[in-house]
């Protein structure tokens, strides 16, 4: 190998030849004292410099990111790993002893009638909550996107339930739904309809919590949809109007395709939220989970709600984690392909 050229290994393993810009005397014979360093010395020096730089980079990285990484490890990954370990035990909450049972807790959840019922309820609740929030949120966003009087107030009013406490929301709605004394009962009574037994019938229970969850969540969807609507170029809509496209045609041919990134984002976040964040409403409105026993409620019920099954509950929590992981991965892999980015 001649001086003036050197070969570097690229990260991918291939070689890259570059021209050395050092003076021409480099590499010529010189007295011993000022002899140029040989290849090994140069490589060692480079390696040392590289190591020093690496070490400096690592120190900076650890200085800035270290505390966060430690916190994430301590409060997310360590509990996650502990939970996975607990899911392999037959363990009563707080008991000093437990029996390792391998995957038996998972097998039980996927094969028992109560486990299958949890999947059914979770599916209905998630579908109702996500579709309800997104469709109503989009309709409200379309209205709020128009220049109407009191638009700012209306936007605030629509969004405010989203930031309210779920417990408070649930308590207020319990009064509304009360079939003996509730506000809804009075309205239905005026039009000659008897109030359904919202709290006693499992199906009505499920419908009731879906309505409340959608009411609380649709402000979030409306605001995100509104942001999406405002990013659609006006000239496109104006051109379509000039071409005599009606409002429905403009919506389905221009607005909706350009909103697909927003729809995709909301779909992912809403599914995750509805499967994990609805616990407060469910717990307050239906304390025994009668007809509303979604997977997040089942985790609570099995560990704290009388059963005290810490190991089994941990297994259901792991199932929820991987369910959300898989749903998100599938959505990223397949649904995103159909998303139209501007």
């Amino acid at each position, binding site marked *: 190998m001649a001086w003036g050229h050197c070969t570097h290994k690229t990260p991918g393993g291939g070689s890259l030849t570059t021209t050395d810009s050092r003076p021409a005397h480099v590499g010529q014979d010189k007295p011993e004292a000022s002899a140029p360093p040989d290849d090994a010395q140069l490589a060692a020096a480079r390696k040392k410099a590289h190591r020093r730089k690496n070490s400096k980079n690592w120190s900076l990285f650890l200085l800035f990111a270290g505390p966060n990484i430690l916190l994430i490890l301590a409060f997310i990954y*360590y509990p996650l*790993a*502990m939970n996975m*370990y*607990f899911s392999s*035990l037959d*363990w*009563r*909450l*707080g*008991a*000093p*002893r*437990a*029996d*390792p049972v391998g995957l038996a807790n998972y097998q039980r959840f996927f094969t028992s009638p109560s486990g299958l019922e949890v999947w059914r309820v979770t599916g209905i609740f998630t579908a109702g909550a996500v579709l309800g929030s997104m469709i109503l949120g989009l309709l409200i966003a379309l209205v709020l996107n128009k220049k109407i009087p009191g638009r700012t107030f209306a936007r605030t009013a629509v969004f405010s339930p989203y930031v309210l406490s779920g417990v408070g929301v649930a308590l207020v709605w*319990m009064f509304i739904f*009360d*079939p*003996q*004394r509730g506000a809804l009962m009075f309205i239905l009574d005026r039009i000659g309809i008897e109030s359904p*037994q*919202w*709290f*006693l*019938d*499992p199906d009505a229970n499920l419908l009731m919590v879906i309505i409340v969850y959608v009411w609380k969540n649709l402000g979030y969807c409306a605001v995100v949809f509104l942001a999406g609507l405002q990013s659609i170029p006006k000239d496109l809509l104006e051109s379509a109007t000039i071409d005599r496209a009606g409002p429905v045609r403009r919506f389905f041919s221009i607005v909706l395709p350009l909103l697909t990134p927003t729809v995709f984002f909301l779909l992912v976040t809403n599914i995750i939220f509805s499967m994990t964040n609805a616990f407060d409403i469910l717990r307050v409105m*239906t*304390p*025994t989970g*009668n007809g509303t026993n979604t997977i997040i409620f089942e985790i609570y*019920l099995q560990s*704290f*709600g*009388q*059963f*005290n*099954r810490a190991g089994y509950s941990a297994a259901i929590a792991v199932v929820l984690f991987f369910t959300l992981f898989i749903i998100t991965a599938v959505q990223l892999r397949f649904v995103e392909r159909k998303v139209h980015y501007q």
Partner: protein
Amino acid sequence: MKQSTISHSWKGIAAFSVAALAITACGPDTNGGDAAEEAADTDWADVEPAESIVFATNHPGGSEDIEAEFIDEFTEETGIEVEVITSGANYEETSQWFQTGGGSNADVVVLSDATWFPNYLNDALIPVDDVLEAADIDVSGYVDALYEDYLYEGSHYGVPYARSTPLFYYNVEHYEEAGIDAPPETWEEVAEISQTIVDEDLAQFGYAFPPSDEYPAWGMANLVWGYGGAWSEEWDFSTVSSDETVEALEFAQSGVEDGWANVAATSQTDDFSSGVASQTIQSTGSLGGIMDTADFEVGTAFLPDGPAAEGETPTGGAGLMLAAASSPEEQLASAMFVGYMTSADVQARFSEETGYVPSHQESDMSDVYADTPQFETAVEQLERARVQDFARVFLPGADLELATTLQSLLTSGDDVREEMERVEAEFESLYETDLADEIDG
């Protein structure tokens, strides 16, 4: 290069092993050890009480101030300091807190009749008989059934503290308007009076049954016992689907079908206080709240008799338990404390302040009776108190199963026998899954 790969592999294995060790070290013992064997018999004669103890309480019945008052008096009397920890908003939270290690420094803990048993199974409680004797606490004054609630395998695991029973409530004004001069003594009379009230259009319903989240298996135990049935006979669950139990539940179901009774949507207390229903059964602890809310005169009566038994009254509420993790010195001091908190005078004042029934037979309640004569019924009814069935208070998940089944039966018209046979099978399954190994040894 090869050496480097091996080195990385070993590092990975080592890191994984350390992580696995860290995880398993923090979990429960999986080697089959028995912590109970480690508990040696204590010779209490050699033990001096500790100078301070920790009391974990959810302040039942809004008792924070009165508990603090009692603690000051106890410290003044004995010199033992008591640190109070608020362990939750209710009995369930307190038990969860104690079970999950939050209460690892608690010496005395308030646990309900339905939550102390898992803590017993976890070896977290000590039997109190010997230590109470060492602390010179006379247990003969406790209401028998209230103390027997904590009896298991020949030892008591708590003393009765914040106790309650169900009580029969009725709307005096509705009774007067319907010409009814006395509350019902039997369930048949409850049905007759309820039908009269509905016929006279005095209320929408004559009687309100509890919904699933208001512990219907507790409130309806009297009805089932009255017909000779039960939720269980110790660990024998066949009684839950016996002819007697089925007959009792068919009676309740027919009440809703015939229209003289309903199942309250949110709480039978609300239905009664608002005048939707003229009669109900609810905890003695709800008396104060009902009297504050109702704009009519409230009457109270003993729980009704059934065709097979006098109106037996299920016990309820919470007791004081001693932690197994405490030192003998702390346990002895704790025994002195629980003895003080359940003494006749303290229980009378606690009852007056909270609405719980006094657990001591010698508590003087005359001042309370003068102000609230309805409360006298609650205290006198203690003579009929009966310890609850194992299935409801000891079998994990059984109370929830009963609660949802009872609500469903009363509102749907399902076949009672078929449903209760399903419940029996469910109880057997719960027992096999969660208890059999420990109970049967």
